[in-house]
């Protein structure tokens, strides 16, 4: 019988530059159990929120996460609006959807880059982050900020999108098409990426449902849930888009879902811009108070459904504010997906749900080893993962994708 070793990953600087602690129980090279520990990043946002007024709460939840910095506020304002039956002007709805989708593209590109880095494809990492800049430029144009846009408020949005800015936004979106197609072709066709991600970290449909998995993690396993379609909010009822799903639930399918979703996001943004050219009116209904009551707001963040619950007693502060980020449901699925895999693959599997610990706020992974208590850090895991890709490169002779000649022209 082989000896079981615990490989601790974390608590600091593991995989995703955020504090979490995975205890990977391994026998030899095989992961047999995962224990997850959270709490290194717990900031007591829910408690803090009870001391802020409704306007300040939105700024507070915007700072839960630097990447989903519009998803939390959007779900939060919708909870406040549901509690107080506050009307939102139509024009504001389109702006909300447009900003939400821009955030989705930049978040998926960020993940794609990190995923490329973890499997030793630093080229993908650099390309993805380079083109993510374009998206941040659009967001800067619209909101004045590259991140933390400060756009959402109960009753509408803080800033209108100027008619004169729309052609510029369209131009920047147009420029994004080619790089996204490049990523689609690179990832979907590349034999090495297939070798590293296909059949790895499979989350079955049944397990996705049992764990209440959300977003791309669920959709890659064939569970077609999307809060934009199932619980229509912002302007999504008036927009045409597809919910992208795959069947296998492995790392490859999670990647495919995210890449294809970016194309849907561009479609949505273009529709929003067209609507913004014709739909007139205010972008804010200026609610003066929030009536006593309770409300639930959901929004499909890049990682899945964000859930906010607000209770108001008629004062200017929430009595209770519950926040549930998608990673809170997605991270436990790692207990299923890493089992039976190797330590080298654990790196990408643990990253495949696109975990966000500042949102979720502890984890552990187990590996089967021939003895000795080895302590590995994130760097070792990334090194192991990169070595596997190098080995595959030598075996197959494939050197990875090459960019088309004109992709960096005029930039």
């Amino acid at each position: 019988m082989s000896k079981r070793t615990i490989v601790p990953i974390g608590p600091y600087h593991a995989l995703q530059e955020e504090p979490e602690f995975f205890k990977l129980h391994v026998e030899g090279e095989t992961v047999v159990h995962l224990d997850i520990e959270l709490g290194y990043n717990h900031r007591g946002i829910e408690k803090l929120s009870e001391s802020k007024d409704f306007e300040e709460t939105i700024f507070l939840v915007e700072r839960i996460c630097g990447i989903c910095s519009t998803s939390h506020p959007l779900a939060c304002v919708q909870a406040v609006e549901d509690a107080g039956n506050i009307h939102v002007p139509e024009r504001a709805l389109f702006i909300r959807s447009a900003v939400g989708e821009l955030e989705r593209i930049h978040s998926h590109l960020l993940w794609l880059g990190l995923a490329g880095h973890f499997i030793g494809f630093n080229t993908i990492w650099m390309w993805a982050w380079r083109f993510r800049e374009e998206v941040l430029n659009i967001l800067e144009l619209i909101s004045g900020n590259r991140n933390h846009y400060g756009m959402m408020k109960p009753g509408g949005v803080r800033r209108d999108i100027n008619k004169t800015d729309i052609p510029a936004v369209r131009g920047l979106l147009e420029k994004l098409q080619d790089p996204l197609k490049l990523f689609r072709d690179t990832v979907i066709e590349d034999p090495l990426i297939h070798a590293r991600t296909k059949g790895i970290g499979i989350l079955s449909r049944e397990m996705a449902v049992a764990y209440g998995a959300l977003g791309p993690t669920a959709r890659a396993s064939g569970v077609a849930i999307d809060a934009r379609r199932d619980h229509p909010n912002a302007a999504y009822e008036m927009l045409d888009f597809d919910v992208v799903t795959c069947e296998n639930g492995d790392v490859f399918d999670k990647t495919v879902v995210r890449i294809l979703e970016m194309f849907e996001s561009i479609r949505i943004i273009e529709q929003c811009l067209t609507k913004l050219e014709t739909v007139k009116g205010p972008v804010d209904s200026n609610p003066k108070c929030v009536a006593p009551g309770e409300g639930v707001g959901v929004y499909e963040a890049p990682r899945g459904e964000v859930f906010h619950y607000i209770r108001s007693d008629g004062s200017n502060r929430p009595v209770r504010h519950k926040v549930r980020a998608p990673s809170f449901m997605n991270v436990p699925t790692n207990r299923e997906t890493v089992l039976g895999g190797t330590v080298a693959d654990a790196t990408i599997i643990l990253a495949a749900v696109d975990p966000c610990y500042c949102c979720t706020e502890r984890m552990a992974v187990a590996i089967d080893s021939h003895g000795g208590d080895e302590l590995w850090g994130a760097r070792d895991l990334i090194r192991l993962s990169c070595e596997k890709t190098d080995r595959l490169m030598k075996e197959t002779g494939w050197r990875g994708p090459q960019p088309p000649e004109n992709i960096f022209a005029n930039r």
Partner: protein
Amino acid sequence: MGIENIITKISEGLGDSLLSLKQKSDKRVYIDIPPQAVRETSRLMLETMAARFQIATGVDTREGIEVMYHWALDADDLIVTIRTMVSHEKPELDSIALFCVAAEWIEREMWELLGIHFRDHPDMRHLLLSDDWPEGKYPLRHDYQRSDEVTP
């Protein structure tokens, strides 16, 4: 299925356990149940209604600690909140994590932040707070004092 049908089906399934039902809008329904009915109600929602467990929320109120289970019926654009109240003296509930693995973490969270004890929870230990957090100090209770905190 239609919201009317859903409400009828839930009401029939709950029987005497249904204390009150409030339809806030055509997308939100709030149902009150006694604490002893939590497990059977959750089974009803999960298995009969095929609802998705979104999350649970605990609120400290004057009357007791309120616990809400939010269930999403995605095909019908409906969120059903099942609500129950436990006393401050004996804040105990049956765990639903045995058959609903999605609820495992949130029950751990509600235990450490609000002090609700979940009977038969498979893995009850701290989730967010540190392992040496003083016993009986619950940050989301209204009687919590900052002086209760451990200074490192």
